[in-house]
């Protein structure tokens, strides 16, 4: 299968929950070391917690997979592993092509820098070359609609202007795979509509996406498949046209 862009098998992420004070200081660490040396490891004080457990999925070119699930179900953990922010404890994933993760808008934005400077900085953070950003600069600015404030430090921006500019950069990066975590909920209704349309365009161009969102109506419009995560595992995976979203919504509201 040549058009598989993400092939993940058995991904798991374990965290050790400590029920005692964390050894955050050298003193505690040294003390724990002494104790561990005296009476074996102090594993009794910790408990394993699998934020993600045995998750396997495949993503194809031009496909949009939506992740739904309650808080703490492992959606963000999965996106973070796929974007290489944190390493998996188990399993592996093969990623084909350029992956760009939008886990927040405006990564690396610096308040002292102007809008113009931040566009280039953020572009670099998203893995774009300077020349690519230069070529798309006018489109980015037009998309954001903040031409007048381009040379103002972003610390003077309103929060709406800030996210519009930040999202505009993200919408113009060159990617084969996009990982999007709740960043669609920015700006006013008009701007959100603009974002959705740009995502739909990119899907048609063959970009693959994994989208996390709590806004189910919005997911309907772009997602082809939906994966429902529960306690770190994929509970169900189905076509978006099925009743899975509806059932998730009922469950989430505590109706079901």
């Amino acid at each position, binding site marked *: 299968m040549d058009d598989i862009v993400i092939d993940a098998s058995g991904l798991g992420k374990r*965290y050790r929950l400590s029920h005692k004070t964390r050894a*955050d*200081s*050298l003193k505690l*660490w040294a003390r724990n070391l002494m104790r561990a040396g005296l009476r074996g490891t102090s594993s009794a004080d910790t408990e394993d917690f699998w934020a993600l457990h045995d998750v396997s999925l495949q993503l194809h070119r031009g496909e949009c997979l939506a992740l739904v699930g309650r808080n703490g179900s492992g959606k963000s953990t999965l996106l*973070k*592993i*796929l*974007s*290489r*922010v*944190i*390493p*998996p*404890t*188990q399993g*592996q*994933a*093969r*990623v*084909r*092509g*350029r*992956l760009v*993760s939008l*886990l*927040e808008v405006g*990564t*690396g934005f*610096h308040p*002292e*820098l102007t809008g113009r*400077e931040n566009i*280039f*900085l953020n572009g*670099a*953070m*998203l*893995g*774009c*070359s*300077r020349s690519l950003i230069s070529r798309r600069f006018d489109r980015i600015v037009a998309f954001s609609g903040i031409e007048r404030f381009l040379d103002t430090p972003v610390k003077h921006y309103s929060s709406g202007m800030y996210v519009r500019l930040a999202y505009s950069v993200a919408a113009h990066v*060159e*990617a*084969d795979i996009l990982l999007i975590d709740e960043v669609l909920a920015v700006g006013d209704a008009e701007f959100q509509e603009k974002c959705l349309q740009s995502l739909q365009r*990119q899907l048609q*161009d*063959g*970009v693959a996406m994994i989208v996390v969102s709590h806004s189910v109506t919005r997911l309907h419009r772009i997602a082809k498949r939906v994966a429902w995560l529960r306690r770190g595992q994929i509970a169900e995976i189905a076509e978006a046209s099925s009743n899975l979203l509806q059932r998730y919504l009922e469950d989430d509201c505590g109706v079901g």
Partner: protein
Amino acid sequence: MTSGRPHVSLIDGLPPRFGAYCCELWEFRQVAVMLIQRDLIVRFRQTFFGLAWLLFKPLMLMLVLFFAFGFLAGFDRNSAAPYPLTIFCGVLPWYLFTNAVPDAMNSLLSQMHIMQKTYFPRAIIPLAVVIVDGIEFFVAWLLFVLGCIWYGYLPGWQVVLFPVLCLQLFLLVASIGLWLSVLNVRFRDVGNLVPFLMTIAFFVTPVGYTLNQIPSEWQLLCSMNPLVGIIEGLRWSLLDGASGFPLVSWALSTIITLLASVLAVRQFLAVERFLVDLA
């Protein structure tokens, strides 16, 4: 939108190899360039004197040291070159060391919010900080040049060693910085300890004095400090001092620097992927 080669990467939670990591650093060089630009812009924006701060601080330290060691202690009497120039050769590398090591140490923690949201080789962050301080270091040598003009002093052929010694200084600073930066993520104690150690290091480093002004039986012990070989080397290279090339202290410094760089890189690669989890 697919451009060029289909790049396949494997996510498996294993530590990266040194060679592959270097390739990746090169791939992400744009991030380093942007971080360096950002730091340079932010440092001087909204400062009235701007770049003059770069020269003012080492100049003041030189004057204080000249007063203490040259004027009060009379060390300048048996100095071949103008004593202020001798002090500059110590003050400028010292300034790089004392700025870049704590800056690099704090860099990962202060940029953690970026690391939590996007991937690039994490070593870029401390290395970019060292480069920014390095740029300031080179600008500050303007003071030395002005000093040379003032005294009508011209360095000899030994100046060819200047770039080598600077490189060695960068390697030393980057290694210590890399190592402390990951250590600081795990143990915040380091952030308290290092500034204190810096104060002590200042007195055991020949910044305001020269190595041959301390009793000869102590010189070897003093040379265990890798900065000593570099500073004395710079003095030899730029001031053509009466004494010969400081072979012992330079050799010691080279060995310690190389050792430190190997250890720092190994340590960094071993824990790099856990940094976000640890913070």
